[in-house]
């Protein structure tokens, strides 16, 4: 059928016939919509003399349009084993990803590889990964405060003044140093990252994080140089999805533990013991 799924005792995720993630099934048997894809924004270009002519650059995220798709289908390789199950996705020749579920972890790991971002068309690009679920979060999402408490964000809103957003995408972006989450009273989706990124929820059920940028114009805020990064970037996102039904530990507690484990991961040390038997070495 060309439709595959990977999972463990806690949940499984399914992929559609085009290779995109499209569902998650929990251990109680419930199935929920959950998709993921990469997009990019094209950076605005201007002479920086007035606000409306500001270029997207090192300090400024200023897309000139809505997002662009990077692929309409994904090449997929599926690997299943007793310890880990993986789906290797190739979106195009500069974006690929491994979606991974370990036997004993209750989260999904996304290891993405993006770049070098092509600029042959002379257009700067800012690449985002976007997760879309069936959660009705009513414009509300949460981002962490430098790894500490989660702060409530409301789309197109500020608490202390009446907001008229001139830039509805960038104006709703917030810093995400550890975690971004949405919930609707029944379910909660959170994405944890391995480095600081910008993120938002631009529509109900969706979370997006910017993973890489390559821009060709300076934004006149002091760097005096375009943010023209030529290298590929590899990183990880951790997805937790669950019901808010009073289970212990709660979703927030699971996120908190996972945050500590991912931001202070075990250190690996390697020793060459070629010349010794194990017992002697020990």
């Amino acid at each position, binding site marked *: 059928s060309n439709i595959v799924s990977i999972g463990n005792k806690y949940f499984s995720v399914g992929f559609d016939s085009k290779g995109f993630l499209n569902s998650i099934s929990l251990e109680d048997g419930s199935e929920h919509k959950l998709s993921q894809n990469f997009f990019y924004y094209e950076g605005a270009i201007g002479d920086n003399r007035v606000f409306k002519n500001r270029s997207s650059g090192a300090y400024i995220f200023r897309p000139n349009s809505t997002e662009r798709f990077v692929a309409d289908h994904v090449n997929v390789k599926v690997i299943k084993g007793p310890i*880990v199950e993986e789906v290797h996705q190739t979106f195009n020749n500069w974006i690929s990803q491994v979606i991974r579920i370990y036997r004993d972890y209750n989260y999904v790991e996304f290891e993405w590889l993006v770049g070098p971002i092509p600029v042959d068309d002379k257009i700067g690009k800012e690449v985002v990964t976007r997760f879309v679920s069936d959660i009705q979060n009513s414009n509300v999402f949460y981002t962490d405060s430098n790894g500490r408490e989660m702060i409530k964000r409301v789309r197109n809103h500020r608490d202390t003044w009446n907001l008229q957003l001139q830039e509805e995408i960038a104006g709703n972006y917030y810093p995400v140093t550890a975690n971004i989450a949405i919930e609707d009273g029944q379910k909660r989706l959170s994405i944890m990252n391995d480095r600081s990124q910008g993120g938002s929820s631009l529509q109900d059920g969706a979370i997006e994080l910017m993973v890489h940028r390559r821009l060709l114009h300076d934004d006149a805020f002091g760097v005096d140089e375009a943010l023209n990064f030529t290298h590929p970037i590899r990183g990880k996102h951790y997805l937790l999805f669950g019901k808010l039904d009073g289970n212990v530990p709660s979703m927030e507690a699971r996120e908190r533990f996972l945050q500590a484990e991912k931001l202070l991961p075990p250190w690996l040390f390697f020793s*060459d013991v070629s010349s010794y038997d194990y017992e002697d*070495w020990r």
Partner: protein
Amino acid sequence: RVHLDYFSEVMGVLQHHDAITGTSKEHVTQDYTVQIYAAFKACSYSAKIILNQLTARQTNKDKPPESEAARYLDQATGQPNFTFEFDTCLLLNVSSCEISETRDKFMVTVYNALAHSVFSYVRVPVDGKYDYEVTDYRSVPIPHQMISVPPQVTALDPAKSAGYELVFLATELPPIGYKSFFIVRKPVKALNTPRVLVPEVVLLPNSMSSDEPQKPPRN
């Protein structure tokens, strides 16, 4: 202390907001990388000393730790110049490690910096032309899985990337402590033990005595 101070100073430099957010010029970012690399290598020397002393304490609690590990190992192997080296692999993020890809036998020591017990899946770059046996510090076989690395990742460092990773579960890593795993590579089909799952057992470090918590709560 000199190395630790140097590392601290570099970490101070890298608190600059351009270093944190990636808004610096590319050659500045590369200089940040050079600085943190130099500091990391210098400090890894100190880390080796610390780990040597930790190992010595675990080896024999009654004797002074400073030279006990080296002395014990010398007696065991009969080789007076035994060196006790721990190395970090700074290219693990592109699935590359010189020791694990090229040595017939190597040890992976997993250090848990958290104040509570954790379990963690370990991924080690290996050469796909071989099969591997993984045992813990009591010679108990550990179930493992070989898995291919995507070609886009191996292309990042084609001179070094192995193309495969060995995955196994490190259980019950003690708080602010470590466990070591012994890995031997063998020609395919030469393994005596089939790759089957064995029952999980909770293994306590030798240094734990009976009046200490026997089984930290799992997260």
